[in-house]
């Protein structure tokens, strides 16, 4: 006589939940600082209920069965929120894998007289829970990736300040590598400020750019070209000796671009372009 595993598990729901909670609470990785035990119990109960509601004798081996959709959904939600809250992968994994322990324990106790069914049940439940484990990690990593993407956006946003150094002169210190996405942000930012402030000279300081290869140079040339199309002039400053060397060795032609060694030199040049004169005030001589 074969017993229906799904029915059996449903009947033992309370025991399973208790076992599961106990093993979670006993785990060294319990994060009471991130989530209260009540909240944990609530999450656990929700997942277990949806799982027990979903399984039937037939779909136990079919992970894609429709009945599992809510289970996956709840699990994904939990994993993502854990990723955001700062749980480690191990702590997130323990959540699902301790459920497996609880389920298996129940099966072993209940089916100890029916070795054959027990064997089969162990294998199926193992597979099912492993699948849930995989989903947990997939969504956990996705959650982390979202965090990273958001941070990338933020970094791109904050790392390209445009400074108005004088009436009609903008300076833009670039720090870090210039890739094409970054160049786009820099260019947009710079051109927008040129329009807003009506500036005619922009100084692009690249002393914070670790290396200039032909691709980076290409991006700089593009930025200069776009600035000129708008009707402003662009000076590149902060050409360090190493940069000068690589530029020449790579055969990059910067002859159409105004370049200066330092931001100060560029500013001086900008002043002369605007026909401004900076002078030290002479102390009035006593007669």
């Amino acid at each position, binding site marked *: 006589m074969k017993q229906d595993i799904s029915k059996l598990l449903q009947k033992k729901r309370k025991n399973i939940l208790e076992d599961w909670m106990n093993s979670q609470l006993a785990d060294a990785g319990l994060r009471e600082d991130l989530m209260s035990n009540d909240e944990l119990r609530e999450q656990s109960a929700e997942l277990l209920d949806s799982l027990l509601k979903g399984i039937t004798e037939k779909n136990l081996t079919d992970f894609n069965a429709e009945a599992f959709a809510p289970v996956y959904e709840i699990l994904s939600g939990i994993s993502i929120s854990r990723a955001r809250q700062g749980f480690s992968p191990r702590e997130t994994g323990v959540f699902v894998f301790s459920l497996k322990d609880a389920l298996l324990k129940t099966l072993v106790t209940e089916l100890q007289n029916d070795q054959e069914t027990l064997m089969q049940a162990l294998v199926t439940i193992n597979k099912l829970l492993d699948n849930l484990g995989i989903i947990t990690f997939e969504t956990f990593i996705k959650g982390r990736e979202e965090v990273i993407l958001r941070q990338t956006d933020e970094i791109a946003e904050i790392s390209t300040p445009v400074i108005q150094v004088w009436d009609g002169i903008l300076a833009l210190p670039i720090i870090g590598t210039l890739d094409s996405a970054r160049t*786009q942000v820099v260019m947009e930012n710079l051109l927008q400020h*040129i329009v807003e402030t009506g500036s005619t000279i922009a100084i692009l300081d690249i002393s914070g750019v670790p290396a200039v290869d032909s691709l980076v140079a290409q991006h700089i040339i593009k930025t200069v070209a776009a600035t000129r*199309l*708008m*009707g402003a002039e662009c000076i590149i400053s902060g050409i360090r000796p190493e940069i000068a060397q690589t530029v020449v060795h790579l055969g990059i032609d910067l002859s159409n671009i105004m370049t200066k060694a330092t931001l100060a030199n560029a500013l001086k040049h900008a002043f002369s372009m605007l026909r401004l004169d900076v002078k030290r005030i002479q102390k009035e001589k006593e007669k």
Partner: protein
Amino acid sequence: MDRIPILRMGKFLLVTIQIDLYDRLATNLETDLVYMVNKTGAKGVLIDISALSIVDSFMGRILGNIGSMARIMDAETVVVGMQPAVAITLVELGLELKGVHTALNVEKGMELLRNKIKDLDYEEEDEIEANEDSTE
């Protein structure tokens, strides 16, 4: 047939493009402007494209052409008010607008034209009066 109006202001011709152009309109503008430069003896052409949301290779070529044609008729051309997004797109497209000067806005464009002309000629100061032709 639709036409873009060309205004005359002293030694300069002013064009403000207020609508997105289809190709025929742009070609007409090129022809009209060259004729106007000839007829009025204008020394400078100012084209305001601040209302243009896109400039593609055709429009870019027309602007370049106007600049080159005006230059061999002894007039300088300045394109003013290009939108940042348009400038970025033109660079990506690979178009440089050779033959025309650029300026941020009409005011700066006029200043640039005046300086250019001051550099070029120093004698003719007497032609602002007389021939008040209409634009058509």
